[in-house]
């Protein structure tokens, strides 16, 4: 299946938080997990669920907001990435301009690598 994939030129960027052992690297093609639509505090927006994009940069390791929201410490910290999506991927024929892009921060557990088909 052809997906619309954006260009990414990973910028020189110093992650503001330490990075442990990231599983993903800038340029990698990833899919956002669909998720079950369950309750709780989740920072992966619905409109990105199942979308395929490219890692734009590593932001660092941060405590899990899904746990922090309930007063727990959110450890172990997880790697946060900025992921770039083509608007055509997100909105299909309704995209204003298919090559426009959207960048969002997504935590590693919400991403899976997509291997070239």
């Amino acid at each position, binding site marked *: 299946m052809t997906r619309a994939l954006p260009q990414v030129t990973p910028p020189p*960027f110093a992650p503001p938080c330490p990075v442990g052992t990231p599983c993903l690297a800038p340029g990698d093609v990833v899919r956002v997990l669909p998720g079950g639509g369950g309750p709780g505090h989740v920072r992966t927006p619905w409109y990105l669920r199942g979308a395929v994009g490219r890692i734009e940069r590593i932001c660092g390791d*941060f405590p899990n907001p899904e746990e922090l929201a309930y007063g727990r410490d959110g450890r172990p910290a997880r790697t*946060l990435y900025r992921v770039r999506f083509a608007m055509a991927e*997100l909105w299909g024929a309704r995209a*204003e301009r298919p090559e426009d*892009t959207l960048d*969002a*921060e997504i935590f590693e557990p919400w991403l899976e690598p997509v291997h070239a088909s």
Partner: protein
Amino acid sequence: MPHDHHDHGHDPGGLSPSGHPYRKDQDHALTHWQRMEIAIRELLVERGLTTPVEIAAQVARMDARSPALGAQVVARAWSDPDYRARLLADGSGACREEGIEVDALKLVAVENTPDTHNVVVCTLCSCYPRMLLGLPPDWYKSRAYRSRTVREPRAVLREFGLDLPDRVAVRVHDSTADMRYIVLPARPEGTEGWSRAALADLVSRDCMIGVAVPRTP
């Protein structure tokens, strides 16, 4: 301009330290939520969690945050290519270089170019680089902006008066987690040799959110 917070039952009048008129709340009927704020404030002071001086200082601290700080950073980036590179690599560090204390802000600067225009939104709530730009405008927190900017940014930008040609790509940033964003606008033509103060004057809050571009002289 300093303001005396000791008024009781009077309209504070004048301007708040952020340079805007105070909303006239002092003379309206006390609301349930205002009662809650007063009650919480007093209980937290009594519990020793905070003090009236600390609360007033924090109010003053936020009042001192305004887009002028962001404009100062933009103007320096325009004037100094090495600083611009440092801003893009480490936004918070670059702000601190300018003497702006940004606390835990994790700032990502995204740069407009002749072929790319950036715009920032927080679809899930209202994340915003407050310590750099001050409090966000109401429209940034609205359903309309949060819903539509990720799907039809060009239509939204046109509503703000910014009509981008098709050769310019739009890049939307959804502030979903720990990073906060500032758009580094493109330096307008005809500003060669300008002082940093004059350059900063061209940079509005809306330019640094991405719904506007700087005035051309």
